[in-house]
C-alpha cells in the first residue's frame, strides 16, 4: 500500500496520507546521537526538514534545539511514526529514540 508523506506549512507538520499527524512544538528525546554533547538530547521540534518512508517506518530529520544544552541544528533520521496496512501509528515523542 502506498504511503503519502510530506511536510506542510513550512515544516510545521508531517502529513501522512493527507492527514496532519505530527506537529512541531513537541520535545523528542534522542539517544546515541551526534546532535549535541548531551548523553540524551531533549530536542524541541521547531520544524521538520525532511520526511521519508522506510517501510513501515516514517522518518524525519528534525530542525530543533536541545533544551538541555542549547545546541540547535538538524538531527539525523528519527522514526516519528509507522504506517502499517495504511493505518498510521504514532510513536511517543517523550520516549527515547535512536536516530539513524
Amino acid at each position, binding site marked *: 500500500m502506498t504511503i*503519502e508523506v*510530506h*511536510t*506542510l*506549512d*513550512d*515544516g*510545521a*507538520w508531517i*502529513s501522512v*496520507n*493527507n*492527514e*496532519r499527524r505530527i*506537529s*512541531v*512544538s513537541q*520535545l523528542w528525546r534522542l539517544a546515541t546521537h551526534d546532535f549535541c554533547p548531551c548523553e540524551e538530547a*531533549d530536542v*524541541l521540534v*521547531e*520544524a521538520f*526538514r525532511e520526511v521519508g518512508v522506510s517501510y513501515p517506518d516514517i522518518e524525519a530529520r528534525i*530542525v530543533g*534545539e536541545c*533544551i538541555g544544552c*542549547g545546541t*540547535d541544528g538538524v538531527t539525523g533520521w528519527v522514526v516519528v511514526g509507522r504506517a502499517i496496512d495504511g493505518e498510521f501509528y504514532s510513536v511517543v515523542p517523550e520516549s527515547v529514540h535512536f536516530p539513524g
Partner: protein
Amino acid sequence: MPSKVEGWKDEVYGTEVRERLFEFAEEGWEAIPEDEHDAWFERFKWWGLYHQRNGQESYFMMRIGTPNGVLEPGQLRTVAEIADEFARGPADNPEFGGAYCDWTTRQSIQLHWIRIEDVPAIFEKLEANGMSTIQACGDSWRNIVGCPVAGKDEHEHIDAWPIAEELHEEFKGNDAYSNMPRKWKVSVTGCDQGCGQGDINDLAFEPARKEIDGEEITGFNVRVGGGLSRKEPRFARDIDVFCTTEEASDISAGMSALFRDHGNRDNRFNARIKFLVDEWGPEKIRDTLQEQYIDYELRSAGEDLRENYTYNAGHDEVHGDHVGVHEQPDGNYYVGLNVLVGRMGAADALELADLAQQYGSGEVRLTQRQNVILTDVPEGNLDDLLAEPLLEDYSPDPHPFMRGSIACTGTEFCSLSIVETKNRQVRYARWLKDNVELPADTTDFHVHLSGCTASCAQPQIADISLRGMKSRKNDGVVEAFDIGLGGGLGENPHFADWIEMRVPADEVPGYIGNLLDVFEAEREDDESFRDFIAARDEEELGDLADPEETDYEDPYMHNTKQTWYPYAEDDDMEGRPTPARADGTPISADD
C-alpha cells in the same frame, strides 16, 4: 528535485485556484477530496486562506492585503462587518471575545474561524469595496509595506504611496510573477525616518538622491535579501542600484523575475532570496539583474538618508511608531492609536470606522507595529476625537509597555508556533505597566513576542525579544522563551543578542523587571536601553539579571499546541468540535 509544493503548484496555482475554491465553497467542506486536502490548502494560500492548525479543521485564517496599510474611507467598516458576520468560531477568546480583526506587522488584516462556504460572499463584499485577499499568502508578491503615513507626513523625501499602489496594481494577479519559489516581500519607503522597515524585506526601495545630468533626482536605492525567519536573520543587502520613482516598477519586475528564475525550488527551507544573496553576493545579484532583466544601464547607488533614520533607532524618535497626534503637511492631523498586540474586537473596529468618518476623511491606516492611524483630522476636530471613550482602550498616548508590545498569532491558530502569544503578551504588558518602572525619559520600549523562529512579530528588532521555546520545570514541560536584547533598526540596524535562553514563561516578567532595575541604576546619564546593551559583552549581559517568579500568573504554561483551542472550557483535542459544516455542526468520523 522540485519540492512537493512545486508539484502541486505546477498542476494548479494562482488565479485559476479561485474557480475550484468557489466550487468547494458551493458544495461545502466535505467536497474537498480528503486525499487532496494538503494540495488544495497549499493552493488556497494564494487567495489568502490558510487552513488553521490541527484541531481546527475546516476553519481558515483569511488575510486581506492592504497595500501600505491604507484602508480607504469605508473599507474598515467593510472589514469589521465581515469579521462580525463571518469570523466567529466555536469558542470565544477570553481577552477579545468572539469576533476580532488582527492588524499585522506587514500592514495586513487577518480574520480567523472563516468557513470555506462563506468565502464567495466575503470575496464579493471585499471586492465591491476595493479590497482583496489575492496573494496575501503563498509563493507570491505579498502585501507591499511602507511608511504608514506616506503622503501625509512632514518627514517625506518622496510620497511613496502612489508607487506602492502602482506596484500593487502591476504585480497582484500578474501571471508572470504569480508562482515564485517562495514568498516575496517588498517595502517602498519615501519617508526619511526609515519607518518602511526596508532592511527586513526581500526587496527594499529606500529614499535616496543622485545627481543625474547636473540635476539632483530623488528616487530610491535598492536593497535585497532581508528577512527574519528561521534562526537566519538577514538585513537586506545594498546592491548598488539607484532608480527613479518611474523605474521602481522595472526594478521590481527584474528582481522578482530573477528570484522566480534563480531561486531554490528544490528546498523550501532555503528558498527565500536572502539565501540566494548569501550564495551569490550582492555583486552577482546586480550583474544578473543587469544582464538578464533590465534593458538599460543600471545607475550606481545614490546618496541615501540612512544617517537620519530615527524609526526604531534606539533614540530620538521623531514620529516614532506614529502613535499620537501629528500634523500633516496640509494642516490636518493624523492620530495614531495603540492597539495592544494588534487585535481589535469587531465592535470596536466598527466604532473606529465611525470615528474615522466623523472626525477625519474616513481613511484609516495600519502600521508595522500593529497599530491604527486615523488621518486627515482637522485641528478643530481633535479635542472631540481625543475625548471619545474608544480612545481609552486604544490610546494615542499609551504607557510604553502597552505601546511597545507586539505579538504574533501563536498557538491559538498557527501551525508553526511553539507557544501561546497574544493573550500572554496582553498579560505581560499589564503586569509590567503595574509593576515595573521605566526611566522617565524612556517613552518607547519594544517588547516583541514571537511564537517561533518564523519571527512574524519581528522579535530581532526589539529592545526585548521573546521567541517561543519549551523548558522543563518542576518535573513538567512548560512554555518558555528565549530572550534577546538590544535589537533595532536605524542607520545601523542590529539584531537582538540572545542572552537568556529557555526561560519559563512565568519568569519572563520578573526577568524584565530585574533587567530594567539594573538599567535604571547603571545607565550613564541619558543612555538609551539599546546603547546600554550595546556597551556590554555577552558575558556581562548574561550577568545583568536573572529570571524570577513573581505574582504574575500565566494560565498558558501547559502545552497549548496540544489543545484544540487553548481557551476553550474543554480544550482536549479528543473533544474538538471540528471539522464542522457551514452551520457549525461538527462532522464526526462516522458521517
